[in-house]
């Protein structure tokens, strides 16, 4: 046998080092158990009756992706299983929204009974309607507790194909201390005001902080950009990309606001903003490197949390609007839907009833900072305390929805056309060369069945 070389032993040593450190790390993990929410999962109303009828059955719930949301799903499922004897198997969906979509699309088109209940994005009811159970007979009464707009979004051809679960909408984050420092008494109400204020604040702050930017948002070529762009266009009176079944994105007001955004890239918005998703936006703002940020409400909890550099120095308000328009927020959020191919429809519907009840929505709002879809829960004092963006002034902003109901199964593809085009505009191409192409492609997709 050849004598072993130095390199060989280096490899052995590093392998051993890895094993040792991994065992230390895992052992430490086992010892310090994850802090369970001090707020317990609420009890299941009528648990005994449910247990008598459906106890012993087993259902599969495709829920939130790995992370805090998955933890919440596990806690709720555990409570439900304990009290009703219905075993709930929680499967997290992929983090990327189009991968999550494909997962469900495949299962449904294969008529698989492997999924009983799934968390579906607010833009998917139209696509999945043929595969979902009508919840109106059993949950119609409970649905009246929820926001009418979202219930309408989840009702396709008179069938309630999904129950609202939690909501989301775009809001504007701003640094209260910087506004005061540069002499502004209140946050901007129009886009041009925002650009002005961002420019002045950035000029001042960049003297001491080279990475400071006036305004950050999600400009990457992905679904989030479709949400941002819808807010710009709708708030400027440019329509909703598709109106009444026809693509309307190619209009003067839309082009104007998109070109205005484009002109800010590299000026008040960092050049890299066309690669930003929610995470980079949040990091920029919470690190103190931005004056204004557009993001979903989830950012609030992080910024206000312990150890945050901007704690106590920021607030939220509705997004600005164009000269002739009104403030809007794109609807995000998730619904719960029951598969037509489920072998345990009734037990599953009981699970959905529990999950979309006011008590559970309150639990979700407090432990996960999610926006409740039940207005009464949104007004609850404890909920508002942990989620200040639920103040009526902000929470009642006009919601705009992405044009999913016209696009049905082709929503993903159409959104791709939109966000790729908008990303191209942000990266420097004038809107008038891009919008006609987007409109033509959208009309073509609308024609497809």
């Amino acid at each position, binding site marked *: 046998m050849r004598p072993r070389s130095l390199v060989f032993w280096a490899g052995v040593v590093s*392998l051993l080092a890895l094993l040792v450190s991994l065992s230390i*790390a895992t052992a430490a993990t086992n010892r310090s158990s994850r802090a369970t929410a001090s707020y317990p999962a609420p009890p299941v109303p009528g648990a005994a009756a449910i247990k008598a009828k459906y106890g012993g059955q087993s259902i599969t719930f495709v829920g939130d992706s790995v992370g805090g949301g998955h933890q919440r799903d596990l806690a709720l499922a555990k409570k439900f299983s304990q009290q009703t004897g219905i075993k709930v198997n929680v499967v997290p969906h992929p983090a990327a929204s189009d991968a999550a979509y494909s997962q469900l699309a495949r299962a449904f088109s294969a008529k698989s009974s492997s999924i009983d209940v799934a968390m579906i994005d607010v833009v998917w009811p139209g696509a999945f309607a043929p595969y979902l159970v009508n919840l109106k007979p059993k949950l119609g009464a409970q649905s009246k507790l929820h926001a009418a707009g979202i219930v309408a979004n989840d009702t396709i051809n008179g069938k309630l194909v999904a129950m609202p679960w939690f909501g989301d909408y775009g809001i504007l984050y701003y640094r209260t201390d910087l506004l005061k420092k540069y002499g502004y008494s209140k946050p901007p109400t129009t886009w041009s005001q925002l650009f002005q204020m961002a420019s002045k604040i950035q000029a001042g702050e960049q003297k001491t902080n080279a*990475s400071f930017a006036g305004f950050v948002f999600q400009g990457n070529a992905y679904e989030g950009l479709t949400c941002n762009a819808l807010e710009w266009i709708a708030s400027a009176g440019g329509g909703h990309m598709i109106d009444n079944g026809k693509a309307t994105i190619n209009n003067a007001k839309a082009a104007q606001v998109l070109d205005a955004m484009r002109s800010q890239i590299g000026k008040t918005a960092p050049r890299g903003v066309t690669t930003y998703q929610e995470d980079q936006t*949040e990091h920029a703002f919470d*690190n103190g490197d931005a004056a204004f940020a557009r993001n979903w409400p989830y950012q609030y909890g992080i910024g206000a949390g312990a150890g945050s550099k901007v704690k106590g120095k920021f607030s939220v308000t509705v997004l600005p609007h164009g000269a002739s328009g009104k403030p809007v927020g794109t609807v995000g959020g998730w619904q719960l839907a029951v598969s037509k191919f489920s072998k345990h429809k009734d037990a599953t519907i009981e699970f959905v009833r529990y999950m979309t009840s006011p008590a559970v929505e309150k639990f979700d709002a407090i432990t996960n*900072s999610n926006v409740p879809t039940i207005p009464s829960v949104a007004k609850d004092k404890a909920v508002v305390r942990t989620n200040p963006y639920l103040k009526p002034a902000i929470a009642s902003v006009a919601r705009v929805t992405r044009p999913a109901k016209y696009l049905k199964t082709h929503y993903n593809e159409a959104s791709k056309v939109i966000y790729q085009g908008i990303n191209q505009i942000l990266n420097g191409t004038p809107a008038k060369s891009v919008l006609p192409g987007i409109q033509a492609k959208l009309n073509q997709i609308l024609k497809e069945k």
Partner: protein
Amino acid sequence: MSRSVRLRRSPVGRVLTRLGFWLLIIAIGIYALFPFYWALRSSITPDTALFNTPVQYFPSHPTWAHFHDALSSSYFRRALLNSTLVAGAVTLLSLAVGSTAAYALGRFRFHGKSFVLYLMLSMTIFPQIAILGALYTMFSGFHIIGPIDFPKLYDSPWALVFSYMIFTLPFTIWVLTSFMRALPADLEEAAYVDGATPLQVFWKVLLPLIAPGLVTTGLLAFIAAWNEFLFAVSFIQSPSHYTVPVAIFSFTGTSGNAFQFPWGTVMAATIIVTLPLIAATLILQRRILAGLTAGAVKG
């Protein structure tokens, strides 16, 4: 002697050349290893310091927290397991099938041998993307003949085992064939005289002799299968079936919002994934190089 040679041969010239040489070596080493250092540094930097400007080259308060997070994610652990199983299955299958094929191609003479050899060679440059759509629809199950249906492999690790053969098998056959051919021509004579069957000859005589080749191709097949991304991201949907590259690509932390991308934890996951590979590479570097050059240079 030319002036440059005289200069180079002078003591000063020698020292300078030597210095320049060593600087170059160090530069190459840094170039190869710096990203790993950076990943390591990021994995032990707490979140509060990770998104700081200016950048810290070594954290003032290093932490194990990111490693905890990465390992406490059962989905990441599952991905490590999935990758190991898939890569292991692919390697074993490639070696089993490939060695018998190499036996035929390396020790037998028959019509069509060169055709098969060139077929295998051309397979090594086959672009996987070209058959993505076909495999994608095949895995949803399709009808072969009569009652035989192709199993629905979509979202199953077996879809990967099956499709990875396309790049592991041809290369394995090509390299093992050259190992087989390199063995002396009359090696099997003695065994045949003793009445051994061809399969016994294969198992007892030839296989042990090409053992280094088996180790090499097995290693290369394992690494190739472990690192594959295109098929894995296209055929696997559920997070519990992810392999390591897909898990790293769509990593989400165990806590926090779906929107948050945990750079610190991802870097920790990266270190966890790469350290064994680095260790294996260091331990087996001679084998790996031998295999790669056998495939490339001798071919």
